[in-house]
């Protein structure tokens, strides 16, 4: 049953070897995805969301390198794949839509050219068939007058329209997995909703799995079945959407949820931001990376990385607060005040 999962990442470690030193972008990231599943990866900038997803299709930017763990995708062992083998799956079995549709399309080629290109690369359709397919794809992603659009250049289309073209390119070869890297961040709110709706609609029709990378919890709540919350290159909490929203276990997840504006908020009630700044990935702390910003930080949090705690089959987190029974007695209540002292002593 090796191919039970579409994506199976185990203990992935990935580092960027910069002149300033090794940046450990991913530390022991593990997750599995079934076919057709929608996974949301949330986290702040630099938490490793995109890096995780890009590594599945071998798009890790120089000077990044896998330094440990295994990645399997659709029966491929990504670790040992050559650039040539990657080229065969990119745009074919796994494709991606990027954040900024204004710059993701080549300005000097027509929309048709850019869609047909990927079709002709991965299938043996001839020029005419590729054009027909491109036209169908444009219709599929809800673009009117596809015939005319094929001949237009990206600068003649609006942002939302261009993102639809990007989706058409991504879906051209009916991939098993679609990676959406903040696909709506650069769009107007009204267009955002349309694009998300389109993606869900296409997923119904085509049945591909989706990895949705975002920092917008609202998007994952409405779209995803599973959510991975990332912080400083680790998945700090993973679970079903219900687990994450109704029963968050990690302090960072709780913080994220608290910082969402609520419709039923009382007057004068303020949003609660997460104080502090993200960790310096060049010098990651020894303990839990979130500890310096955590309101419930204890001494052990600063010393040691917490182990994984499972709640049921799927939901897990990495936080000492959920390991209380293990060291209860050893470490009596340590308050945030003490943590403050410790931080200032450093």
């Amino acid at each position: 049953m090796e191919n039970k999962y579409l994506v199976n990442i185990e203990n992935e470690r990935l580092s960027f070897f910069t002149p300033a030193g090794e940046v450990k972008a991913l530390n022991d990231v593990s997750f599995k995805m079934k076919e057709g599943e929608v996974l949301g990866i949330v986290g702040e900038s630099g938490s490793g969301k995109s890096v995780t997803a890009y590594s599945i299709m071998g798009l890790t930017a120089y000077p990044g390198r896998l330094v440990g763990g295994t990645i399997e995708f659709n029966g491929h062992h990504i670790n040992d794949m050559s650039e040539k083998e990657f080229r065969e799956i990119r745009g074919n079995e796994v494709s991606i839509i990027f954040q900024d549709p204004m710059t993701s399309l080549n300005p000097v080629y027509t929309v048709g050219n850019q869609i047909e290109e990927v079709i002709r690369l991965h299938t043996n359709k001839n020029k005419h068939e590729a054009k027909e397919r491109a036209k169908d794809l444009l219709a599929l992603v809800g673009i009117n007058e596809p015939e005319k659009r094929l001949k237009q250049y990206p600068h003649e289309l609006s942002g939302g329209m261009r993102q639809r073209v990007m989706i058409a390119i991504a879906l051209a070869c009916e991939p098993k997995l679609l990676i959406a890297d903040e696909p709506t961040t650069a769009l107007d709110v009204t267009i955002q909703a349309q694009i998300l709706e389109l993606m869900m609609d296409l997923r119904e029709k085509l049945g591909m799995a989706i990895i949705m990378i975002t920092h917008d919890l609202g998007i994952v709540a409405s779209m995803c079945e599973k959510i991975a919350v990332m912080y400083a290159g680790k998945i700090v909490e993973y679970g079903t959407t219900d687990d994450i929203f109704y029963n968050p276990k990690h302090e960072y997840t709780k913080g994220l949820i608290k910082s969402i504006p609520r419709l039923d908020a009382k007057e004068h009630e303020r949003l609660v931001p997460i104080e502090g700044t993200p960790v310096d990935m060049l010098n990651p702390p020894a303990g839990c990376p979130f500890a310096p910003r955590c309101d419930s930080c204890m001494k052990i949090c600063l010393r040691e990385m917490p182990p994984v705690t499972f709640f049921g089959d799927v939901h897990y987190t990495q936080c000492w607060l959920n390991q209380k029974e293990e060291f209860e007695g050893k470490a009596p209540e340590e308050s945030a005040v003490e943590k403050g002292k410790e931080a200032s002593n450093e």
Partner: protein
Amino acid sequence: MGKYLLKRVILAAVTIWAVATITFVLMNMVPGGPFLSEKAISPAATAALEAKYGLDKPFGERYLTYLKDALHGDFGLSLKQRGRTVSGIIAAKFPVSAKVGGIAVLVSLLLGIPLGVIAAYKRGTTIDSVFSVVATLGIAVPSFVVCTVLMYFLGVKLGILPTLGLTSWKNYIMPVFALSAYPTSYIMRLMRSSMLDVLGQDYMRTAKAKGLSQKVSLFKHALRNAILPVITYLGPMVAYTLMGSFIVEKIFTIPGLGGEFIKAINGRDYTMIMGTTIFLGTFMVFMLLIVDIVYTIVDPRIKLK
């Protein structure tokens, strides 16, 4: 497009008129005259010669006569090469320079563009450094040094290449090399820096994510975006190179237009100076127009209005 072209042609006419006028005025301010270098001419003979070419008339009248004749396509007789018209000399010499120059332009493009692309793609590697040193040399070393060094080693020491005239294809090697050293290096550097810019663009990541090979990514997706600066440079570069280089033509004894240009200035051959300048000016304006049109073909976002 039609309206744009009409506008450009009118502007071109104005430009060429300005070039002609400025040259005419400057030429008359330079001391000396066409007949001074010739030995022992009696004042009467000088006066007779000046009268023959109309040089005795006042400045304003000469200027107007010149413009009128030029409009009719008559650039007059050369003052130094007796009995030959300026147009005839240009018609005879330009093809020689243009042939050597044309080959040099092709060589610069065929070498400069791919080398620049490779340097950008391999940035920071030894190949990039080697290319960069060679390009800097090509720009910094003046062509008379390139010419003499080439001539000394290949022509004299080794004796494998002929050093004068244009009788066989071998004759072209050294002049073409000397003419294309600078433009090749310049194009390579332009290409490299503009390519580096393009390689960092999001659409290059899209190309990779589509599964395209490096070759297609670079030469289809990146090149067309990165080549605009090279096209800009190409306009004046083609005009100058086809006109011929005085230095290269002098050293390799090529009977081209570049030599005539300098000879005319030294000899105060007024009509010849005017003729060659207007010819170069017209050629230049024409090349700039071509560049503008090529722009719109390469980048659909550019519209001529």
